[in-house]
């Protein structure tokens, strides 16, 4: 009865919110349902025969999850996952609500969930994890996590609780951890992905060498088998995305008997997760969207700009609780930013001006910034935005899913 009420009220809330705000409001129904039946998530997950795979870490969670889901689906599996970035408890419950019957049952072969590292450490003690994929540790969200050591501890809990753990062999923060079992690992071809492009949270300790069975190249992923390597061609990807893809392929190898032809075919079709280096059409114009979530991803995306991006909009939304970290990003390659937007627009604009970057309009309201941006002319409209600004602008532009 409790589950029925939880699902009913949760679905009702979801319906009402989506009527008012299409594409939005994924968390509140989850909060309501979880309050009524705290076991809703666990019961649903336990009913999935293929078990639970979780992807966690500072960065790359969404991409890795998306790639893995796509690869599993290409093999005919029905995969339960948390679309969008609903990676904390209420988001996960909301994902259950979206796809369950009124008894809270979901009909899937396997679950692949992206987990926020903080919430994941708690969830790991409640849910049976078949495989944990740990991407990396960055110096990120320090206002929330205080120090990378805290993140490392949380990821360790997830790995310890999991049946198997798959880690990034290039990140010594992860390699140093004792999970109580030998971790599986994916790594990088250092000739193709230079070490400078794969930087993680500061760590002065030794880097235990882990033999990895999947290696990321600039446009390939190699699975090292017994006496024979399988080399898959991929689209050319930045180093961090190549690592995400390698993580997904490695996880796939851990989970099922793969069909190499199917894998090869799907790898060439894979598109980046929404808003990460994505090109969309708005008002008959192609616009490049780039999600920046922390100093590392902001810097990487800036480094990838070639200089012909016009108009250029940078947005820092409410998700950046303390915008101090914007000062660890080097914006000096930019000459001018046409629009600076989002809740923390003034902080971002001040940072830009101290680096000698010209700033056009500064607009705190994300939707107004989006409108102002669309009014500007230019051959290559480009937006770099944080997650909150991304959600607001995408919804405003009719891109919400």
């Amino acid at each position: 009865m409790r589950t029925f009420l939880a699902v009913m009220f949760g679905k009702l809330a979801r319906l009402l919110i989506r009527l008012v705000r299409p594409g939005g409001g994924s968390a509140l129904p989850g909060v309501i349902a979880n309050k009524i039946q705290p076991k809703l998530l666990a019961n649903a997950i336990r009913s999935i025969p293929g078990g639970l795979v979780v992807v966690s870490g500072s960065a790359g969670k969404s991409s890795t999850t998306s790639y893995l889901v796509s690869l599993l689906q290409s093999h005919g599996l029905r995969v339960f996952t948390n679309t969008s970035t609903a990676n904390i408890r209420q988001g996960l419950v909301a994902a259950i609500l979206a796809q369950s019957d009124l008894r809270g049952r979901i009909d899937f072969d396997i679950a692949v969930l992206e987990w926020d590292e903080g919430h994941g450490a708690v969830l790991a003690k409640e849910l049976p994890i078949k495989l944990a994929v740990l991407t990396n540790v960055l110096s990120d969200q320090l206002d929330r996590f205080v120090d990378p050591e805290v993140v490392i501890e949380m990821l360790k809990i997830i790995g310890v609780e999991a049946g198997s753990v798959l880690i990034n062999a290039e990140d010594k923060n992860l390699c140093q951890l004792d999970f109580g079992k030998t971790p599986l690992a994916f790594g990088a071809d250092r000739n193709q992905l230079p070490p400078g492009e794969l930087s993680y949270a500061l760590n002065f300790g030794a880097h235990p060498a882990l033999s990895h069975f999947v290696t990321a190249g600039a446009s390939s992923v190699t699975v090292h088998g017994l006496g024979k390597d399988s080399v898959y061609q991929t689209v050319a990807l930045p180093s961090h995305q190549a690592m995400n893809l390698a993580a997904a392929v490695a996880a796939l190898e851990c989970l099922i008997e793969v069909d190499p032809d199917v894998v090869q075919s799907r790898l060439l079709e894979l598109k980046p997760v929404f808003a990460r280096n994505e090109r969309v059409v708005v008002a008959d114009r192609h616009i490049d969207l780039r999600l920046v979530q922390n100093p590392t991803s902001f810097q990487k995306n800036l480094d990838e700009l070639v200089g012909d991006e016009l108009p250029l909009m940078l947005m820092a939304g409410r998700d950046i609780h303390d915008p101090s970290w914007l000062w660890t990003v080097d914006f000096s390659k930019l000459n001018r930013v046409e629009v600076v937007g989002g809740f923390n627009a003034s902080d971002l604009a001040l940072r830009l001006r101290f680096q000698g970057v010209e700033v056009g309009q500064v607009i705190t309201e994300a939707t107004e910034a989006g409108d102002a941006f669309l009014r500007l002319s230019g051959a290559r409209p480009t937006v770099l935005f944080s997650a909150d600004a991304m959600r607001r602008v995408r919804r405003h532009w009719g891109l919400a899913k």
Partner: protein
Amino acid sequence: MPEHFNNNGDQGNLEVLRFFLEAQGLQVSATDDAAVADFVLVGDASRAAISHHEQELTRLISVLSSRIAKGLPTLLVGSSYEFFIGKIAELGTHARTTRVSEFRSVTPTAELTVMGYRNSELASGDVQLFGGFIATTLYGPILAKNPELLDLLLLRLGAERANWPEDMLEFVAKIRSEISSD
């Protein structure tokens, strides 16, 4: 090594000082010798960095004590500040309590309100002033967001008060207004 003490953009304070000093025609160069520097910054760092550089930080105790005594322009921030509490007597002793992570306005003197973000277990001592020596839990680019504090340092450095471009001062006013209403 300075890059290890830039957890939250504290090194940006050097950019701010350089910006206004050079605007006044003063030349600025960097040195790693704290004993001869006109201005010293020890920024917030990760636990790993504090541990790794513990000996170097310990060697700074006498220099920093001397700078406090003379009121020389210095900025000691976040975890580095906390490292020296208990090692430099003038910084006092401060009880530890539940960690508070929030924007905060602090009034170290009747004429000065300093705004910034802190994430600390210290129960007191958010901003301590010893002439031009500033020890604070407020990390990030506080000189960019606190023009009066910046002027205090500029004057101590023998320069003039900052001459802010109008648009930048507007950004600062908005940021301070948001922190005040937080």
